[in-house]
C-alpha cells in the first residue's frame, strides 16, 4: 500500500466513530470475515489503525479501495460538512431520457478532458441518487484523495448538491455536469446547509403540505381546532379559539404540517435604505445600508411556524419568511423597489 492510501486510511479511522467503523467495514466487503474479526474494536483508535493497515496490506488494497470505504461512510452519514445546491437550466430535448450508464460515461469523459489526473468514482444509491466522488490532481501531481469533492445528483431533476469543492475546480465541475446532463447552463440555487437530507427534502418538497381551502372542514366538530388546544372538559372554553385556529392554519399553509426538514440557517442580505422615523441623520443618507441578518436554529422552519402560529410573527406570513420553503432557498438579497420614494416596497431578487 502506498503512502497516500495509508494516510487516507489513518484519516478515515480517526474520523469515523468506532461503532460506525465496524458497520462501514462490513458494508465495504473487501475484507474477509476472519480479517474483520481480527481487528479488535475495543482498543484505542491508534491500535485499530495499525491492525487495519496490516490487514489491508495482506489484501493488497490500493488507494482506490480506501476511497470506496470513504464513500460508503459519507453516503451513510451525509449530514456533515457544508452542502451547496446548484440548479441546471435550459434542458435540451434528450435531457429527460438520460439514463445512468450514459450519464456516467459522459461525465467521466468530460471531466478528464477538462482536467488530467482526476479520480472519479460514481455510485448509484438505493434511493435514486447518483453519488460522485472526485479527487482532483493536475498535470504534475496525483489526485489528492484527502480532499475529495462529493456530488449528489438525482437524474431527471435539475438539482445538484455539492460538498467540499474548491473555487478553482468549480467551473470545471459545473461544465462537466452541464454537458453530461444535457443542459445548457447551471446556476447557484442559493440553498446551503449542513444536513443534506434536510436541504434535499426541502427542495424536492418531500414534507407534508397544507393546501389553502376556503372551507377547512365540512362538519364543525368541537375539537377540530389544533391538537394542543383541545379541551375535553366542557367547562373550559377558549374565547379566542377562532383567531388562534386561523393563525395555526395560516402558519401551516406557509410552512407545512408535521415534520419539517431540519434546515438550520437562513441568511438575508439587506441592501435597503435605512428607515426609522426617529433617526433623521441615518434616514437622510442616500446610499443603502448594508446589513446581513442570519437566523439559525436546530430546525428553522419549525421555529418560524411556531412564531407564526403563536402570534409572534404576524399572519398572513410575510413573503420574506414564506419564500424559504416556497422557493427552496435560504440565501436572499433584498433591495428596495426603485420607482418612487413614497412607495416603499421591498422585493427579493436573485
Amino acid at each position: 500500500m502506498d503512502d497516500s492510501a495509508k494516510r487516507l486510511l489513518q484519516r478515515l479511522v480517526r474520523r469515523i466513530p468506532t461503532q460506525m467503523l465496524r458497520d462501514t467495514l462490513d458494508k465495504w466487503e473487501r475484507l474477509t470475515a476472519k480479517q474483520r474479526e481480527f481487528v479488535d474494536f475495543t482498543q484505542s483508535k491508534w491500535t485499530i489503525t495499525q491492525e487495519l493497515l496490516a490487514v489491508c496490506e495482506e489484501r493488497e488494497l490500493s488507494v482506490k479501495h480506501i476511497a470506496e470505504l470513504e464513500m460508503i461512510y459519507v453516503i451513510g452519514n451525509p449530514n456533515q460538512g457544508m452542502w451547496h445546491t446548484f440548479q441546471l437550466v435550459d434542458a435540451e430535448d434528450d435531457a429527460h431520457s438520460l439514463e445512468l450508464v450514459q450519464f456516467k460515461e459522459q461525465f467521466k469523459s468530460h471531466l478528464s478532458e477538462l482536467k488530467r489526473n482526476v479520480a472519479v468514482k460514481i455510485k448509484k444509491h438505493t434511493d435514486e441518487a447518483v453519488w460522485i466522488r472526485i479527487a482532483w490532481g493536475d498535470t504534475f501531481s496525483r489526485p489528492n484523495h484527502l480532499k475529495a469533492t462529493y456530488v449528489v445528483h438525482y437524474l431527471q431533476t435539475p438539482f445538484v448538491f455539492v460538498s467540499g469543492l474548491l473555487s478553482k475546480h468549480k467551473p470545471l465541475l459545473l461544465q462537466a455536469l452541464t454537458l453530461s446532463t444535457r443542459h445548457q447552463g447551471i446556476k447557484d440555487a442559493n440553498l446551503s446547509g449542513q444536513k443534506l437530507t434536510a436541504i434535499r427534502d426541502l427542495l424536492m418538497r418531500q414534507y407534508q403540505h397544507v393546501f389553502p381551502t376556503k372551507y377547512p372542514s365540512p362538519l364543525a366538530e368541537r375539537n377540530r381546532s389544533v391538537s394542543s388546544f383541545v379541551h375535553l372538559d366542557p367547562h373550559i372554553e377558549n374565547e379566542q379559539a377562532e383567531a388562534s385556529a386561523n393563525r395555526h392554519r395560516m402558519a401551516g399553509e406557509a410552512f407545512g404540517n408535521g415534520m419539517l426538514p431540519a434546515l438550520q440557517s437562513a441568511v438575508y442580505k439587506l441592501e435597503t435604505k435605512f428607515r426609522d422615523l426617529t433617526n433623521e441623520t441615518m434616514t437622510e443618507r442616500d446610499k443603502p445600508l448594508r446589513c446581513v441578518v442570519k437566523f439559525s436554529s436546530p430546525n428553522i422552519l419549525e421555529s418560524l411556524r411556531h412564531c407564526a402560529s403563536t402570534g409572534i410573527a404576524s399572519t398572513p406570513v410575510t413573503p420574506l419568511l414564506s419564500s424559504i420553503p416556497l422557493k427552496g432557498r435560504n440565501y436572499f438579497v433584498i433591495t428596495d423597489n426603485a420607482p418612487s420614494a413614497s412607495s416603499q416596497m421591498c422585493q427579493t431578487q436573485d
Partner: protein
Amino acid sequence: MSLLNPFNKRPGLNTATILLVENEEQFQQSLANVLVEETAVTVNVRLAKTLPIPTKNDESRPRIDLVVFIINLTLDKSVKSAKASLKYLDPGYFLGKVCFMVTNARQALGCTGRLDAVRQLAVSLHCPLLFAEDQTPEGVTSSARRLLTILKVASGLVPNTTALYLSNLTRCAMPPDIDQPSFD
C-alpha cells in the same frame, strides 16, 4: 367599546367563572385542567390571549367572577400585553376581582426592572400579586388552589366575605425599602 362588566349578569347556582388572560397561552392550559377538577363548586374556565374578547360570545358567556392576568417575567411582550388588556375591563373589576399571577420570577432576578414594574402596577390597582411555578405539576396544583380560594370569595360562595373585604388582606404592597439601594 364594550367593556367586560362584572355585574351585568345573574350568577349561576354554585358556579364560579374565572378568566385567564395570558399572551403565551401555555400556563393557562395546565391551570385550567386543574381548576375544573374542583368538586365542591362548578368551575368554568375561560381562556384568552388578550382583551378585548370577541363580543359574539356575550350571550353564552356566564358572569366572570375573577380575571387573572398571567405574566411571564422573562418576556417583555407579556408585560406589555397584560398592561394593554387592562383598559378593556370595567372599573368594577378592580374591587377585588382582578389578580396578577407572575411566572419565572427566579429567572428574572437579573432584570428586576420588570418585576418592579409589575409590582407598581399591582399596587396602583390594589390587586394581589401571586408568584407561580408553572413547570412542575405540584407548582400548577398549588397555584390553582390559591386561585380557587380567591375565586370562591369573588363569586360570593363564601358566607360573610366579599371580594372587596378579601382584597384588603391580599392586595400587593410595595416593600418599605424600595427606595434604598438593594444588596446585590
